[in-house]
């Protein structure tokens, strides 16, 4: 098999045995990018010389000798995470030309583990969107059908991993932005528990919901990546000082006797028939593997989208206040600072970001705060309690990741509410703060498009959901099916 098509584990074995060098592996992935990225546009920025120099440094240090977890593994980074000396635009015109001046915590971790940082992947502007169509720099295409979206907001990272343009990638997930693109592109996407991975160096969208996580080709790779990324960081006051378990060791335990909950609210009228069938077949498979399937209820599910779009936009309106033309990025001159801020932000932000800033500012404004923002925070409590209740009856919850497979480019751009509703299965977890992973669980027939199975866990329950994901993957092998590029 070509080097670019390997998983982290497969490539790592070859590197450690000395069958290939980090330089050869990196060159193979760069060649793959050169061959297919014109069609996909997963990358916004790439510096092959820099990537090869990093790989050579890893080779010089000796991969086999030092046994680093990601020694020589080429990884792509979503354009919302700071890498010292590289551009970081959040796919926004307002940050055009911005060069990061420090490494995010997760980037420090990747470097320490010996990873080769390939380049920057496309996304919805400031991570706001479900299709990557809100990028200021153009649309990324789904590797299975170029007329379709790769999901979002981490669409570039998902498309890159699914098309072997990276061995793994980092994304960020505020309402499903890792899991949904992973589902529609056909790879594994993990949103860790809030506080598990430091957000230091992640450009903030909604600070109480954002988490960084890996997009990988297998569940075992996801476990390996999480082990590198997770851990306490004093630079993020929401980082939780909880010991990091050996996620890889947990995988081999199987799922016999594990209680898997099926929330009845997630299997709704009007869901795509093939998705419903694929997820039900996956549940049957889990039962065959020894899991005990129990019906559960998450009664406030129907309110999650409304809660999310008030809380996320309110937090975003505050976080994005820093883009004002003073310290970085675009500036449109004005006669006084107020005029300069207005003109700069009006010219620099795209339509979806503007819409959300207006909604969030409104939800926080005098006279409406109690009716919108405070009420949403209270319903958020009810959604959290739903999960606490449910997890007294089960160890993991299984749902579809997305109600549909990848939709067509342009299909939902004029109807923001319809776009928001496509996140219906992923956002509750961000509100509750626990963890979730999406793994491939089949394909639609015409056209052939990936379907994702979402496995949700308790807070700091990543070992359990990765165990379920791994057991399912080993028993089915959907992840081996690759798009024809």
């Amino acid at each position: 098999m070509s080097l670019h098509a390997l998983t982290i584990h497969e490539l790592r074995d070859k590197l450690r045995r000395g069958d290939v060098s980090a330089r050869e592996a990196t060159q193979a992935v760069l060649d793959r990018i050169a061959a297919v990225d014109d069609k996909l546009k997963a990358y916004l920025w790439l510096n092959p010389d820099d990537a090869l120099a990093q790989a050579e440094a890893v080779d010089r240090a000796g991969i086999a000798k030092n046994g680093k977890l990601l020694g020589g593994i080429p990884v792509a980074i979503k354009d919302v995470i700071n890498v010292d000396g590289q551009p970081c635009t959040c796919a926004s015109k307002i940050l055009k030309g911005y060069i990061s001046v420090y490494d995010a915590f997760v980037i420090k971790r990747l470097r320490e583990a010996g990873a080769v940082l390939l380049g920057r992947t496309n996304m919805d502007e400031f991570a706001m969107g479900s299709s990557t169509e809100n990028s200021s720099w153009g649309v990324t295409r789904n590797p299975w059908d170029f007329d379709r979206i790769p999901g979002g907001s981490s669409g570039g990272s998902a498309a890159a991993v699914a098309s072997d343009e990276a061995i793994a990638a980092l994304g960020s997930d505020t309402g499903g932005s890792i899991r949904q693109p992973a589902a529609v592109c056909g790879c594994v996407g993990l949103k860790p528990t809030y506080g598990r991975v430091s957000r230091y160096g992640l450009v903030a969208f909604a600070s109480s919901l954002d988490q960084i996580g890996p997009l990988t080709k297998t569940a075992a790779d996801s476990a390996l990546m999480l082990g590198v990324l997770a851990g306490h960081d004093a630079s993020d006051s929401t980082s939780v000082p909880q010991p990091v378990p050996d996620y890889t060791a947990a995988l081999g335990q199987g799922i016999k006797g594990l209680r898997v909950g099926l929330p009845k609210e997630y299997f709704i009228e009007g869901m795509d028939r093939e998705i419903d069938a694929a997820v039900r077949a996956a549940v049957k498979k889990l039962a065959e593997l020894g899991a005990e399937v129990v019906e559960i209820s998450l009664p406030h599910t129907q309110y999650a989208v409304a809660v999310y779009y008030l809380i996320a936009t309110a937090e975003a309106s505050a976080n994005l206040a820093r883009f004002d033309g003073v310290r970085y990025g675009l500036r449109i001159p004005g006669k006084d600072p107020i005029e300069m801020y207005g003109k700069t932000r009006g010219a620099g932000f795209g339509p979806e970001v503007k819409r959300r800033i207006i909604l969030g500012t409104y939800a926080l404004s005098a006279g409406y705060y109690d009716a919108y923002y405070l009420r949403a925070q209270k319903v958020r409590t009810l959604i959290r309690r739903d999960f606490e209740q449910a997890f007294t009856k089960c160890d993991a919850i299984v749902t579809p990741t997305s109600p549909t497979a990848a939709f067509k480019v342009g299909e939902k751009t004029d109807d923001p509410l319809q776009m928001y509703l496509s996140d219906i299965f992923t956002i509750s977890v961000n509100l509750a703060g626990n963890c979730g992973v999406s793994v491939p669980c089949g394909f639609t027939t015409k056209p052939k498009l990936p379907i994702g199975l979402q496995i949700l866990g308790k807070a700091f329950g990543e070992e359990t959901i990765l165990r379920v994901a791994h057991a399912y993957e080993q028993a089915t092998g959907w992840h081996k099916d690759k798009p024809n590029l």
Partner: protein
Amino acid sequence: MPEMDVSYVAYLARLELSATEKQKISAQLKDILSYVAKLNELDVSKVEPTAHATPLTNVLRKDEVRPSVERGRILKNAPDNARDLFIVPKIVE
């Protein structure tokens, strides 16, 4: 539900919008606000709000001097700077 005054909210957000943008956002937000009104179905009078999902409170650290990013590198990203300062339009008459 009261009509949202988009011009006023845009001013609060320091966000200049064209007349067309205001019209479009106004119509779209009307849809979104009538959708989120479904939260009014619930009685939340006895529910505490959740601001964030972490179990942590009062995270403190020592107030110590630590190395920071070199000033020159930060200023390189600024639209306008001089003498180690960000330059902005005149604020006080």
